[in-house]
């Protein structure tokens, strides 16, 4: 069956109004035939067919205005059934940059020869007879800005009231200023996390699944692999987990997707990996094409990205484009973690701690290292069964680590 869609006739055409059908169901059409008259802001335009066949169904009523790309009619191909795959338009500019732009690190080094001070700060300092050469600048390139001068003025007044601890206090003040400058914008991150999570909780009906996975073989394989590796190349379980998630998404692509009023499965598997910050808040760098990378390559990526995430030294491209997210809270002590889906993604995978537990296998109860894997899914996009298939796939992959 061929879907006949509202054609795009110009970059500035966004929609059209169906004025009249020229054909009715059962009519035979060939390439070049006029199927309908459509009114646009430029006037009435005849809409032609590029296929041969018989009109099966007319889906639109006359007088209706629809956006470009809306299916208007179904055409049954004549005779041979040609497979006409409609490849979606290749460039998608729809993906908004969701990530926080991270400010570049500013050099803390104080210029020896010349004091950098903004014109405004200098004016205020001079007006108040303040020696600005001793002030620590917190502005761009370490320049002294208005805020610094005001702080110095306030302190110049402050200590005279409490005689003791003058030096200590001053030191503290400077340390504090520096800290405020160097530390990532905690408040902004908090705000961003709050906004995204509130939206998710408001809009997404979640379902939650969990599965216990026996990690005996995976950990054995890691120990064996690592024994032959220098310390810099050793692999953490996290890398193996990420790889197993990627491979499982290849098996169950419905979870590597976005929800845009319909399920849009993504071609690339880009895994957002939650990195928690010591100061609170999270950063989620994106591992592009995770399914195409080896466990070793993923470990290299972690070695590179985690320190940079924590020092806020990421490019915005490294923060965007994730198609699914992994949160890895297990080390914090919790057994399992149920994440909140980060829209427009449709799933988040939670990795809990690995703990030794009694576990029955082939009729024998033994002590096994067990991992709690959870999945929070967007119920609009998929059902529990899909999630369940995913967790089963993860189990399968982790029982066969050498193949990952």
């Amino acid at each position, binding site marked *: 069956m061929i879907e006949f*869609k509202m*054609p*795009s*006739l*110009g*970059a*500035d*055409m966004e929609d059209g109004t169906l004025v009249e059908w020229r054909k009715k169901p059962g009519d035979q059409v060939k*390439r*070049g035939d006029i199927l309908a008259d459509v009114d*646009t802001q*430029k*006037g*009435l*335009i005849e809409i*032609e067919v*590029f296929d041969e066949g018989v009109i099966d169904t007319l889906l639109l009523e006359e007088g209706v205005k629809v956006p*470009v*790309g809306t299916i208007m009619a179904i055409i049954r191909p004549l005779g041979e059934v040609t497979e006409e795959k*409609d*490849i979606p*338009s*290749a*460039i998608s500019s729809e993906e908004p940059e969701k990530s926080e732009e991270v400010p570049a690190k500013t050099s803390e080094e104080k210029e020896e020869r010349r004091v950098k001070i903004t014109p405004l700060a200098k004016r205020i300092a001079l007006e108040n007879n303040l020696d600005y050469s001793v002030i620590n600048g917190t502005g761009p390139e370490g320049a002294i800005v208005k805020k610094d001068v005001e702080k110095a003025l306030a302190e110049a007044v402050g200590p005279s009231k409490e005689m003791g601890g003058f030096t200590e206090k001053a030191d503290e003040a400077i340390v504090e200023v520096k800290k405020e400058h160097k530390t990532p914008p905690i408040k902004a991150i908090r705000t961003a996390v709050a906004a995204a999570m509130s939206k998710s909780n408001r809009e997404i009906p979640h379902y939650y699944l969990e599965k216990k996975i026996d990690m005996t073989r995976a950990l054995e394989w890691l120990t064996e692999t690592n024994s032959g590796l220098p310390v810099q190349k050793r692999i953490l379980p996290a890398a193996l987990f990420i790889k197993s998630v990627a491979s499982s998404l290849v098996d169950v692509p419905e979870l590597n997707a976005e929800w845009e009023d319909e399920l849009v499965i993504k071609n690339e598997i880009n895994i957002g990996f939650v990195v928690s910050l010591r100061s609170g808040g999270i950063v989620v760098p994106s591992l592009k094409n995770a399914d195409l990378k080896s466990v070793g390559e993923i470990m290299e990526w972690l070695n590179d990205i985690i320190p940079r995430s924590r020092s806020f030294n990421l490019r915005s491209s490294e923060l965007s484009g994730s198609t699914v997210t992994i949160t890895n809270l297990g080390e914090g002590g919790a057994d399992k973690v149920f994440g909140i889906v980060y829209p427009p993604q449709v799933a988040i995978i939670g990795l809990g701690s690995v703990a030794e537990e009694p576990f029955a296998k082939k009729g024998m109860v033994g002590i096994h290292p067990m991992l709690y894997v959870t999945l929070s899914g967007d119920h609009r996009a998929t059902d529990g069964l899909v999630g369940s298939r995913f967790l089963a796939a993860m189990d399968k992959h982790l029982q066969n680590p050498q193949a990952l």
Partner: protein
Amino acid sequence: MVFLRAEGFLGASLEWDKEWLPQIYKIHMEKRAKEKKVSPGEQERHLLYQMMLIRRFEEKSAEQYTKEKIRGFLHLYIGEEAVAVGVTQALSDEDYVLSTYREHGHALAKNMDSGAIMAEMYGKLEGCSKGRGGSMHLFDANINFYGGNAIVAGHLPMDVGMALASKKQQKNIITCCFFGEGAAAEGEFHEAMNLAALWQVPVLFVCENNLYAMGTALKYTHAMQDLEKKGGAYEIEAYAVDGMDLIAVSKAANDAVKYIKTNNRPYFLVCNTYRFRPHSMFDAELYRDKKEVEEWKKKDPIPKYQQHLINKKLLSKKQIDEMEKQIEAEIKKAVIFADEGSWEPIEDLTKFVYSGQKA
């Protein structure tokens, strides 16, 4: 540089060159004529193939446009095929061709690869202009096709400049430029005509008069509508031909080329033609009557030429079907080529600003 080297090679005596060069040319042409020895009807069938290829290629382009594979402006050549094919067959591979934004037909007639054209219209790196130009800016220096110039009449002075260069270099090359009757109202048309005549450079001006400058009819844009008469103002030899008839266009173009080579002067050829399609994809055609379009469609150059060849027993119905299949396969290949092409990385955005720039 090329010019200097040629001069050195040929020696200083211009008098001697003048005698000598036509000799070389004659030998060359004789050689070519021998090479081109083809079976009866083969050349004719090739021209038919080109016209049909252009028609089908344009139809496919329209389709790809509605699917949003092609964006920007898309101007189709359907109806005017006899002009591109008839004029281009009179040129040699070495001759320069410059065209307008409705240039797919000229590019195909000049043997540009259909895949490279389709990929260009997709904006892909594999396109003939690396995807930077799109439908209106097809360029391929290897086959001496210099655009794809989308400011109406903006390319006409360039043509004259290129012809001036080949004259100075004593190259036996014609610069052929296509433009619409809309361009003939531009100042640059008149400036270019004047300069070409003044300098006596080998330019073939081909005006494709399709009666509408976008949506404004000839009668609203030209006080004097026998366009070929404009040549007279600059003492440029001019002729008007039925642009819907391949045989007539071919003959006129052959005569024009012969005139330019013999007289070393420009020539102005007006081809009266018609585009069956709207100006561009987004055009409600408020400015012309559908009946008028239907009348012109009766003059469609393709069936007309097919019938001519059948009557002359140079073509069979079966051969037409085979051609259709061949063309379908070629276009399919072009579409796949474009589909499989790659997007240029954004990091390369500022490429092609200066020559010699590292990618």
